[in-house]
């Protein structure tokens, strides 16, 4: 027995209740600064995220200069770096550690979490599920301003005299807990913790809003199986965020107590200058457990939105339905669940019980299965499609490439035995920069190219986009591929210099290549920033649906106002991937077109659905019961 309840009513629905309340015309401050409109908040997240990405990129080039040109005189950077250069014109070793730490923190949290999720979840969720705005516009605004406060604190920490946090982005105690250990563990670390606390609040406010909106504010007909894959990805990302960020908060809280109030959660038996510290009975491994319980899900908080964006772009630009919609949803769900039970693969060499290690190895390797399903589905979606190589499509294909090459090395690293050799080497750096860093970054850039017309009503310049893609794509591989060799040879990450040891100076040429490639790649991003700013004001005017896409955001006007749709919210009748349907007039059928209007392309079971569609948008509910 099956029961189907279908409610195709469009004239009366709960979205319209708050429709009129939002139609106010505010001044500059309420429209552009303290806005509660999800589209403005998304742009705020995007622009802040891009600013952070530039800062993070410049920091990485600074430490790559040290690694690629260990003998160079950098005194020409004196106006910027000032006291952080030694008298010989080299980067101060402690500042080098601060650079690495801040690069990691900025890229993982501020760019790929806030900049990616914050931008696209905010922008796309209401537009694609058919809502006027987020469930709570006020909370959404708070989410951005907490992020802004967090950014301001982190940015300030770059300029204090003792330098920013320098204990690595993973802030392992005791290094991060003791100001005596490194100058960055003083005020810089305090500011880091304050900034992250604000960041966690921002992230939780955002995630609660995303989930609530997706579950409660979907338009009529938008069942879960009709959601675009982007929304599924944002939904699962937000669920992961809600479950994992509080754990980081707990870890940071205990660290704050250790640093400022003299407790010993993470500290024990420490001697500084021959003097024993009073702290007894703590465990630094405890911090690692807590940190990685967030830290591993965080990888998927970063990656899943990019995968969702890619699914949408690849299907649109292949002019084909996504291959295996349910498999895509299922594999994302499976990845989300697995992300919580693999954290200890970051800790194989902490003296963990080898049996426990083998369990975490097994769980880790299982992640390869849903990941492979996703790659397979991307490739089969493109297979025999009428592929249109827009810049967004190229960046999406780039993501699939990085997801594959970076993911394969994850299979190596997930093995607790080989990890003894590879952990904390450049092999790890290469692995996560490809699979998490570059893949997510490409997803974000692809999203910007694809939804720029909806955000700003104009098109980005395609030629500059192609140059941007090819330089970045080749550049990323030139940066990270050599690192695999350097890592297998045993070079540890975070080291300031290897040239002090004759044995380790062998890879100077590869490091030189990596640095040059990194500089070129960063330069290509400047080209993109130029394209972005120029096109906001001078770009070609976009049509309402420039990519002939099916999802609801393209049914809005060129520049949607607060409330998104001038009239009623469209009702959804079909799934979001009706591309190149046999018999159809166009090669796409948007989600709001009822089956009754497309008799030429309907499948037999879809003709059955016609009689459930309301006539003329009248408010009726049809309950069908099958016995």
């Amino acid at each position: 027995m099956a029961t189907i309840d279908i409610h195709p009513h469009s004239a009366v629905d709960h979205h319209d209740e708050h429709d009129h309340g939002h139609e106010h015309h505010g001044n500059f401050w309420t429209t552009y600064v303290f806005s509660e409109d999800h589209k403005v908040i998304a742009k705020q997240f995007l622009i802040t995220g891009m600013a952070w990405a530039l800062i993070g990129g410049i920091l990485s080039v600074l430490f790559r200069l040290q690694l690629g040109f260990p003998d160079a005189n950098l005194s020409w950077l004196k106006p910027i770096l000032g006291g952080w250069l030694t008298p010989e014109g080299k980067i101060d070793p402690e500042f080098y550690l601060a650079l690495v730490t801040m690069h990691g923190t900025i890229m993982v949290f501020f760019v790929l979490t806030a900049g990616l999720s914050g931008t696209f979840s905010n922008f796309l969720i209401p537009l694609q599920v058919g809502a006027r705005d987020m469930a709570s516009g006020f909370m959404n605004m708070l989410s951005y301003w907490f992020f802004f406060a967090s950014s301001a604190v982190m940015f300030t920490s770059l300029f204090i005299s003792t330098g920013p946090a320098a204990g690595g982005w993973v802030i392992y105690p005791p290094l991060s807990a003791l100001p005596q250990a490194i100058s960055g563990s003083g005020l810089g670390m305090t500011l880091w913790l304050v900034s992250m606390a604000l960041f966690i609040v921002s992230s939780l406010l955002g995630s609660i809003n995303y989930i609530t909106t997706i579950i409660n504010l979907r338009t009529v007909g938008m069942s879960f199986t009709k959601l675009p894959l982007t929304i599924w990805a944002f939904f699962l990302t937000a669920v992961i965020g809600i479950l994992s960020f509080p754990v980081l908060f707990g870890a940071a809280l205990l660290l704050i107590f250790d640093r400022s109030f003299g407790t010993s959660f993470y500290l024990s038996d420490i001697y500084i200058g021959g003097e024993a510290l009073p702290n007894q009975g703590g465990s630094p491994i405890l911090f690692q457990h807590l940190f990685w319980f967030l830290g591993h899900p965080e990888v998927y908080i970063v990656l899943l939105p990019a995968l969702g964006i890619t699914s949408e772009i690849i299907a649109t630009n292949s002019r084909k339905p996504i291959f295996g919609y349910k498999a895509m949803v299922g594999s994302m769900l499976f990845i989300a669940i697995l992300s919580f039970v693999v954290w200890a693969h970051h800790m194989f060499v902490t003296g963990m019980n080898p049996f426990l290690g083998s369990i975490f190895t097994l769980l880790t390797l299982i992640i390869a299965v849903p990941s492979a399903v996703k790659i397979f589905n991307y490739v089969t979606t493109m297979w025999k499609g009428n592929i249109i190589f827009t810049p967004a499509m190229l960046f999406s294909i780039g993501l699939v490439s990085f997801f594959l090459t970076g993911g394969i090395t994850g299979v190596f690293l997930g093995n607790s035995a080989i990890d003894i050799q590879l952990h904390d080497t450049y092999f790890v750096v290469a692995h996560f920069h490809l699979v998490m860093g570059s893949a997510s970054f490409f997803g974000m850039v692809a999203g910007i190219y694809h939804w720029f017309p909806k955000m700003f009503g104009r098109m980005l310049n395609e030629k500059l986009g192609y140059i941007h893609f090819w330089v970045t794509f080749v550049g990323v591989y030139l940066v990270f591929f050599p690192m695999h060799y350097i890592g297998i040879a045993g070079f540890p990450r975070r080291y300031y210099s290897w040239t002090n040891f004759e044995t380790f100076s062998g890879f100077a040429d590869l490091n030189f290549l990596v640095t040059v490639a990194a500089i070129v790649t960063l330069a290509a991003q400047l080209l993109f920033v130029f394209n972005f700013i120029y096109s906001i004001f001078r770009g070609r005017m976009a049509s309402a649906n420039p990519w002939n896409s099916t999802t609801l955001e393209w049914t809005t006007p060129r520049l949607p106002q607060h409330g998104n749709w001038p009239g009623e919210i469209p009702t959804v009748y079909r799934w979001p991937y009706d591309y190149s349907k046999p018999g159809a007039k166009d090669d796409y059928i948007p989600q709001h077109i009822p089956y009754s209007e497309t008799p030429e392309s309907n499948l037999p079971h879809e003709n059955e659905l016609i009689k459930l569609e309301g006539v003329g948008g009248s408010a009726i509910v049809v309950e069908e019961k099958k016995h």
Partner: protein
Amino acid sequence: MEEIVDLRIVEEPKKPMAMHPKKFGMWLFLASVMMLFMSLTSAYIVRQAEGNWVFFELPSLFYLTSIIIIGSSVSMQWAFFAAKKDNQEMTKTMVLITTILGLLFLIGQFFGWKQLVAGSIYLVGNPSGSFLYILTGLHALHIISAIVFLLIVLISAFKGRIHSKNMAQVEMCTTYWHFLGGLWLYLFIFLLLYR
């Protein structure tokens, strides 16, 4: 299997989802608070397994405060039912009683800390004591936030804004209060079992 399909047309439209967005957001917030305490209690277990763990008796006042918080949950639920039946006077009284019981709970927790200090268990020292202070302190902070929420509900009750047609606020407050009561019982039983 033979399928019989009967179609009937109902006039009243149904909403796709019945959940109130703010109530739903409240539950998500509770999930994240839950994760915070789960992480700290699991950290407690992991740390305890490593040895060097000082054993001490929990303050006897914690038994009393547990009874207080159970009582406050009863009064909160009473307030909720009263609001549902449009019994405004009873709603006000019960929200007020809940607030007072909440404050009593906080005072009880504070004197519980005094008992710990009298037994030479300080925040700074062996992690077994530090954990106790962190867990109870963090819970007390949440109770303070809930008392602020109760006061907001109390003000709306005195303005006559809480009645059977406008239950969302008092319902969310009830949910939060029960959650924090349950959280305290979880923490207390956890601390009794793992010492």
